[in-house]
């Protein structure tokens, strides 16, 4: 078995799931044909999007005349290229520096493999993934587009190529950065920082009409190539050349550094002390970096999302929005509907944070860390309860920061009553849902850890009922069983909170039951 195949096999889950997600996202073109029932309605939506600064910041500029294919390339194209770039950072680090850090590459190097081979294998995998992504996205459009207006073979091919090349440029850039920094974690952090910079450059170029700047950002490739509008194949050549140069530079730098280290030395020592007395205190200290990253990311994305709703809210007031967005805005005050929709999305994301944090407890048990904590006189239930308590508190922190930021920026972009209070309340109001899902995950991870993966089920069900319940015709009583649709409008005369209390109580009871269950079974490992 070659090293390339071995690396691919080792990371097969990541290499299969990410492309599947992106290809699935590319299957949504027909929705742009169906959302607006008449050309006039679509024209109004296009003009609104073209004059909305927040939309331009996030997606770029929507070209005329705004066919469904162009809207798809503008909106879904933005999501797909950003996700492809995120995937590129994660995969590039996983097949290069992460394999060095965990010692597996050391074993391979001891089997007669040349020093340059691991990086060559990694680059081969990344290039292959780029081709798979390009082909998969193009195939998804071809199969699902039907007769959607504006879809062409050339545009489809350019869209696929843009996705693949965005992935490849970011991946090779990350591989280059991974030769410089000390660890895989630093490489990921630097890769995402560079990605944030690329997004900022693209956003600045689009909002300030500086088209040339888009050529400097991998995320600007979509705007330069313009799939379904100009279909500029030649615009892709510089990106392909950049990927080649980045890969070559990475090979050169790789040959100049020691195995397991970067060209830049890391700071490996510090004289700080840890002043904790409880398991919860220790867990809070251990997770604070992760919590900070989640808080910044969710607050930034949540607040940005809140600023983007003005067009949709105005159109809804005119009765011109149907489909998915229309269902989210509901029949009442569209501003409240939009902020509730934003709060639901934030609640779903924070619930992902919470479930991941709770399920990480299995890893702590498997590696013996929990056993070492328990050997210091800590009660058997304490690590499980502490993890749940810190997770619930962390969820509150993320929601509070996001809610406050939303309350500060949303009134500048959305018209309506009580925007700030509603923005804060709809976000903070998702905390009971987070508590309930944390509790369910704790119950499974604590009492029956082999079934802990089922913790994702209520999140999935709650997400589907909240986002697609009306579109799928799910009865209201069934939708009420989901955890995300119980936040009342604080500006409405009737503000029922019984469901929120039930969620909190259910979460707390589950946490207690899960902690007791953890104390009554054998520790894993």
């Amino acid at each position, binding site marked *: 078995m070659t090293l390339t195949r071995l690396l691919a096999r080792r990371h097969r889950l990541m290499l299969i799931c990410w492309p599947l997600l992106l290809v699935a996202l590319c299957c949504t073109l027909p929705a742009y044909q169906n959302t607006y029932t008449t050309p006039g309605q679509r024209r109004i939506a296009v003009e609104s999007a073209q004059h909305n600064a927040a939309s331009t910041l996030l997606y770029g500029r929507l070209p005329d005349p705004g066919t469904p294919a162009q809207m798809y390339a503008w909106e879904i194209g933005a999501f797909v290229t950003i996700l492809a770039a995120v995937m590129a950072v994660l995969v590039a680090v996983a097949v290069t520096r992460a394999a060095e850090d965990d010692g597996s590459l050391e074993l391979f190097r001891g089997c007669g493999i040349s020093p340059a081979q691991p990086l060559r294998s990694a680059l081969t995998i990344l290039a292959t993934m780029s081709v798979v992504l390009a082909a998969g996205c193009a195939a998804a459009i071809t199969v699902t587009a039907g007769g959607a207006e504006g879809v062409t073979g050339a545009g489809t091919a350019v869209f696929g190529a843009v996705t693949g090349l965005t992935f490849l440029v970011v991946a090779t850039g990350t591989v280059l950065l991974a030769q410089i920094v000390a660890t895989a974690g630093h490489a990921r952090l630097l890769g995402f920082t560079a990605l944030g910079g690329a997004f900022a450059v693209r956003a600045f170029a689009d909002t300030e009409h500086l088209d040339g700047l888009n050529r400097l950002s991998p995320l600007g490739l979509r705007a330069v190539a313009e799939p379904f509008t100009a279909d500029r194949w030649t615009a892709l050549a510089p990106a392909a050349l950049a990927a080649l140069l980045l890969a070559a530079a990475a090979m050169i730098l790789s040959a100049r550094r020691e195995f397991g280290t970067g060209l830049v030395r890391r700071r490996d*020592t510090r004289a700080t002390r840890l002043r904790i007395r409880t398991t919860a205190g220790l867990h809070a200290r251990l997770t604070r970096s992760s919590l900070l990253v989640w808080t910044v990311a969710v607050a930034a994305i949540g607040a940005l999302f809140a600023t983007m709703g003005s067009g949709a809210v105005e159109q809804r007031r005119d009765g011109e929005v149907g489909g998915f967005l229309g269902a989210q805005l509901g029949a009442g005050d569209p501003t409240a509907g939009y902020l509730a929709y934003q709060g639901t999305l934030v609640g779903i994301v924070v619930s992902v944070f919470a479930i991941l944090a709770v399920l990480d407890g299995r890893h702590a048990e498997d590696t013996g860390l929990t056993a070492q904590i328990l050997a210091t006189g800590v009660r058997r239930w304490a690590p499980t309860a502490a993890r749940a308590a810190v997770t619930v508190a962390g969820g509150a922190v993320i929601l509070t920061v996001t809610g406050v930021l939303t309350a500060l920026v949303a009134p500048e972009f959305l018209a309506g009553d009580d925007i700030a209070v509603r923005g804060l309340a709809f976000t903070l109001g998702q905390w009971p849902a987070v508590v309930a899902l944390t509790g369910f995950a704790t119950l499974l991870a604590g009492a029956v850890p082999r079934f802990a993966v089922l913790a994702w089920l209520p999140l999935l069900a709650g997400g589907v009922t909240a986002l697609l319940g009306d579109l799928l015709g799910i009865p209201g009583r069934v939708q009420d069983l989901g955890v995300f649709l119980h936040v009342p409008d604080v500006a409405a005369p009737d503000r029922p909170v019984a469901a929120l209390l039930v969620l909190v109580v259910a979460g707390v009871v589950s946490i207690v039951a899960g902690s007791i269950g953890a104390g009554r079974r054998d520790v894993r490992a």
Partner: protein
Amino acid sequence: MTEPIVDVAGLVKNFGSFTAVDGLDLRVAPGEVHGFLGPNGAGKSTTIRVLLGLYRATTGRVRVCGRDPARDAAAVTARISYVPGEVTLWPNLTGQEVLDAFAGLRGRRDTAAERRLTDAFALDTRRLVRTYSKGNRQKVVLVAAFAAPTGLLILDEPTSGLDPLMEEVFQQCVRDAAAAGRTVLLSSHILAEAEDVCDTVTIIKDGRLVESGSLAGMRHLAASTITARLAGDRAGAVVARLRQTGAAVDGDTGAVRLAVPRDLVPAVLGVLADANADDITCTPASLEDLFLRHYEVAAR
């Protein structure tokens, strides 16, 4: 009679259909250094996890510090220092922060002992754990264990990853702990390590007790090894005399090797001296000999 600090009777631990520990008895008296010996997979770590309350016994009676660890795990582990066989620590903390974490959770610490042990093990506690070698990670938990104000140390393969110099430091720490009245249960498959520091040993294999008792007593029962070189013309006659003593003789000309019960050693040495044999050596039974003898018996 003093109550054992570790008192296990008829311990059985099943994982599904697999029996990891099968009717084990283990007693450790206060203040003794007790070797817990057995090959890989013998059930040593499983037994230790039961002692710590991490696993629940399927059947059997388990008492540690007079308490049942399955019911009072926290009360038991508050009096125990534990060093696991596989040490994993939090990579983003420094060695000192890990020591602070363990001491903070325990609620008690002996700062002077911690500093002394850190120096003895030559451990740089300012470094991040992710930069530590396996041996350095082992040192962190050894410092935490010996520095904690506890009465019982449970050490599961504690020297894996330590260099020979640090193994000597470790053995001195065990002797100091015993001198201070602390009890040590030392699990190991490195026989020389147990031989150097243990007063008593328990040997297990396949989850079952093979033998338990004082090291001196076991040696008394086991054969010493005597080797010698005999002159060629008288070798046959000398070997015949040696066999008459009841010793088992390996080789009949030139070099001979004998397994001799302790009470026959003077007679055998007398025969060899009379025969003017050269290069005579006499080695008391090592723990390794005991170990191998028991394995051979168990394998038959």
